[in-house]
């Protein structure tokens, strides 16, 4: 691992540890201090307070924790879905492969944001904040698996025609043993790559949805709904601390991209 990637991974772990530690170091993300509304940073509130007098630091750390944990869970679900469709089509070949590839293309062609808006419109109005966070990431998982499925399909298709499969068959390995014990383990590196690619994608998607008010519902904080303060022009000019969540998002995303080796490829 190159030093830059090591540093990025270390910084990412530090941010993740800090966000997990928010259970103990900044637990009162919902407490409203009505006598200190929109306060600048002080000794009591290190990042100031929001328009309801809630501690910005507590909300940032809790939001980061929720976004990172649920994006990871969403990425895992998406990977499983992608593996199911991609590997099945790649290993099966023939008509089944064509059919499943067409299914993937069909899902891919639907504009995910419009579909997300449609599904959000159908949810009950009295949806609890906890349910909103689960639904947001579950929908991202259900809508975001197609690209990974194509990668899995290509890898599985390549493996189906490889010498390793012919050798395994000549050794008498067939049926489910062939696919589960010989073929599936070869997709492990691809799965890991897709998983690490999907996590920042979901963090970013949630941030975008949160800014539109379609992500995680208040009072639960997330990176997305913390960014909503950016829409208040006067607040941004008067109290630039509201830009901190955006800075944290950029740092987290850059660390992910660097740790995955994406920046090295482009440079």
């Amino acid at each position: 691992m190159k030093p830059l990637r090591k540093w990025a991974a270390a910084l990412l772990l530090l941010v993740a540890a800090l966000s997990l530690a928010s259970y103990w170091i900044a637990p009162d993300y919902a407490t409203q201090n009505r006598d200190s509304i929109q306060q600048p940073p002080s000794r009591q509130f290190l990042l100031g307070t929001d328009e309801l007098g809630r501690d910005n630091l507590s909300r940032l750390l809790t939001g980061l924790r929720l976004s990172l944990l649920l994006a990871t869970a969403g990425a895992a679900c998406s990977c499983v879905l992608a593996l199911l469709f991609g590997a099945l089509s790649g290993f099966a070949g023939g008509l089944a492969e064509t059919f499943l590839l067409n299914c993937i293309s069909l899902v891919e062609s639907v504009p995910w944001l419009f579909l997300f808006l449609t599904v959000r419109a159908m949810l009950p109005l009295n949806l609890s904040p906890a349910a909103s966070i689960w639904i947001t990431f579950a929908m991202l998982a259900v809508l975001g698996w197609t690209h990974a499925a194509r990668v899995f399909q290509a890898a599985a298709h390549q493996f189906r025609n490889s010498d390793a499969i012919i050798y395994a068959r000549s050794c008498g390995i067939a049926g489910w043993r062939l696919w589960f014990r010989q073929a599936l383990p070869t997709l492990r590196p691809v799965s890991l790559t897709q998983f690490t690619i999907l996590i920042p994608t979901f963090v970013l998607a949630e941030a975008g949805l949160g800014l539109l008010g379609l992500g995680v519902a208040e009072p639960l904080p997330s990176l997305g709904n913390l960014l909503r303060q950016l829409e208040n022009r006067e607040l941004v000019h008067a109290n630039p601390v509201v830009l901190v969540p955006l800075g944290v998002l950029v740092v987290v995303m850059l660390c992910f991209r660097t740790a995955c080796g994406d920046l090295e490829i482009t440079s």
Partner: protein
Amino acid sequence: MILVRHGSGFDADERDLDPSVGASTRDAIRDRHRADGRLLSYATNLIRGAVHGDFGDSRSLGTPVRELLAQRGPTTLRILATGTAAAWLAGLLWAISLAIFRAPALAGASTMANACLLCLPTAAIAALLLNANWPAEAVLAVSLVPKVFQVSRGLLLQAVENNEVLAARARGLGTGRILGCYVLPRVAAPLLAWLAATTGMAVAAVVPIEVICDVPGLGQFAWKAALARDLPVLVVLTLLVAIVIQFSNGASALVARRLEGQRA
């Protein structure tokens, strides 16, 4: 459609609670909802109406969806066309200049700047640029530039390392001629495929941009329809956007195949 049909509030109508609406009207509304409730008939009616240019009525605004699309469509099309063209121009120029002037410091700074832009959600870019009074077209261009730059730069770097290009350089051909005759024709087909992909990205990006910049286009319309639970509008918009994306993908694949054929 299955999702829409089984969503909560699908068959609810606020006119049911309006005392000024007569019993016969209320029965007619209920009959219509009952007809919409059957998935197959709902899909058939939707497609049959769409073929004749009738997309139904908006539940929240009480106006034909077709009229609303006609009112808001041109604004979105203008933003999409201007923004995408500006993004491609800026992204390509940026990538070409880096392929010509191979300064490591410039390349590093470009990679970093591009990575930072890629790490921002479109809505955040819109919110930041709105503070600086940038128009929606410029916001769309800024959100698309890093995607155009990243792909075109990769393709151009691959192309300039090609033997044909190296031989042309050894023969002493000028930079402009090498670019025009050897590099750009080589990358034209994949760039065209990417153009179709960026169309889809632009359509998705236009929703947050129109919402944040308060532009009365189709993106804002979709968002308002989602908040008002106006499902017929959302279904029509989703289907229309899916058709546009499929059409642009198909057209670009066709042209790219023809270009590849010409090169071969």
